[in-house]
């Protein structure tokens, strides 16, 4: 299915509503303003080999229901450490222990992915079931969303480049939602009907 610019804008809007809520929750949690922005989104096939080359720190939540798939919040390793340091007050990247990084980013990932998936559930007026967040380091995105064999991967991946602004520092990560085959198409058709 070929997505138009309007389709991508609608998808970006859904993600932005979700990250907006997540930013509010994070700001309340941390007691300081956190900004989250998703300037644009793009969609690639789950079989795209580029997903084999992306790894780092990932938080994954799976969802099932009217729309099903796997959602990831993903950072390059150093960027993930930097974000964890900023949120917890460590001055140096090598000072923060691994278990604090995993705890902090699992909670941040939980809040961000809840925001985006909640926005998705709201717009489709459906109830989704979710798993608790899982934390990974050094695993390729392709491995986390399905199989390491590209030809056996089906469906589409929505990639939302995400800018975090924490204590005046800019942190760049990605929200990735791997939809099961046909799920994204159904969502887009639904959105097209909504705006028609």
């Amino acid at each position, binding site marked *: 299915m070929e997505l138009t610019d309007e389709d991508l804008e609608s998808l970006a809007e859904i993600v932005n509503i979700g990250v907006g809520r997540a930013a509010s929750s994070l700001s309340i949690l941390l007691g300081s303003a956190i900004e989250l922005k998703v300037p644009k989104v793009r969609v690639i096939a789950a079989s795209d080999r580029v997903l084999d080359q992306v790894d780092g720190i990932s938080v994954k*939540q799976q969802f099932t229901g009217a729309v099903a798939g796997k959602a990831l919040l993903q950072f390059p390793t150093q960027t993930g450490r930097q974000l964890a340091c900023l949120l917890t007050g460590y001055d140096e990247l090598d000072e923060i222990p691994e278990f604090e990084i995993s705890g*902090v980013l699992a909670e941040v990932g939980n809040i961000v992915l*809840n925001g985006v998936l909640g926005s998705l559930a709201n717009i489709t007026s459906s*109830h989704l*079931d979710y*798993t608790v967040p899982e934390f990974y380091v050094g695993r390729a995105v392709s491995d986390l969303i399905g199989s390491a064999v590209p030809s056996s991967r089906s469906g589409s991946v929505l990639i939302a480049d995400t800018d975090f602004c924490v204590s005046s520092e800019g942190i760049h990560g990605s929200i990735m939602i791997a939809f099961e085959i046909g799920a994204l198409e159904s969502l887009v058709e639904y959105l097209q009907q909504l705006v028609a």
Partner: protein
Amino acid sequence: MNDDSRISSGEDRLLDLLPVGAFLIREDFVVVRWNRTVEEWTGMTAADAVGQPLTDLFPNVADGRYAERLRQVFSTGMPATYSPAFHKHFLPVPARHGLEDQLMVQQTEVRLFSREPALALVTIADVSLQYVQLGLLRAERAELVKTRDELKAAVQGLEASNRELDDFNYIASHDLQEPLRKIVSFSALLEKQCAEQLPDSGIQYLGFMSDAARRMKNLISDLLSLSRTSRAQLEPAELDLNQCVDDVLQLLGHRLESTGAQLQVPALPAVSGDRRLIAQLYQNLIGNALKFVTDETPRVELTAERGEGEWILGVLDNGIGISEDAAARIFQPFQRLHGRDEYEGTGIGLSICRKAVQRHNGRIWVESRPGEGAHFRFTLPDRPATGTAADLG
């Protein structure tokens, strides 16, 4: 009030077997199940907890950052994770691992367990041990940083004090030369032009004065030499010690001849060093070997031995030797072991040797016994390139 028929006794037992704290709450936060681990951690039995709102049992849970996301679990079905870095504890329970003032640190996850009626499962993992270990590591690290800073400050203090001492040494010895030159030249003039007008005792006093002035001149000259060795800009380069020692032996040619010394010089290696300072080092050591002699014919042998990344070099003689006590202080300035009548010298030569070696990050020491000669040894860094210059065999 544990009457929810859907929670079978089998599931009850399953919950009790979990190695984590686990309990179930309703949408109104009323506890419907309370496993044994939570009983143990909180000291609150299932009989006391079940049927009570969690917010009554633990008022901190009513705090917005917990309660808001707990409500979301019921309203959206989305899970909530509470990390220890942000929350420390979900349930305020007593300390474990012997830390009286630290509450148990928990990683808590809440997810919808059933939909009708809605129940949420709260699981709590105790991660206190990780924090205890982290605390120990931080304490060790802080101690190391403190020690490092103290050492750094001490080294900086010593360096500053050494610099001041070097500066003082240089200025004092340099400035003393001028008045001394006048004393020497006017006493010479007095001796030359007024000797006839002086009584014998005056001539004798003048002799004492001239002699003292000459010794003072030597002292000042050696002090300046020591100062220059400390302050000189090092020009380290690959240095063939064979050439360096040849130059020194030429300078000492007259003394070698006059003492009739037997000299053994093996093939010496190439090192990394400053030609001027190393030449001064060999000149002083060989000079001492020719000075502190016994009645035997002086024998002087240069030695070289491979060390790890360095050469252990030396000057071995059959002279009068040095006692163990004296060996410990012989490299200090003005440490004379013998009277001036016995041996000429200012007591600074070996200080210059030590400084020259130290400037090359080397060590210098002496192996000796009285009457059995001495082996002055020192280390110099290997030349930076591969291999060694000489095939020592």
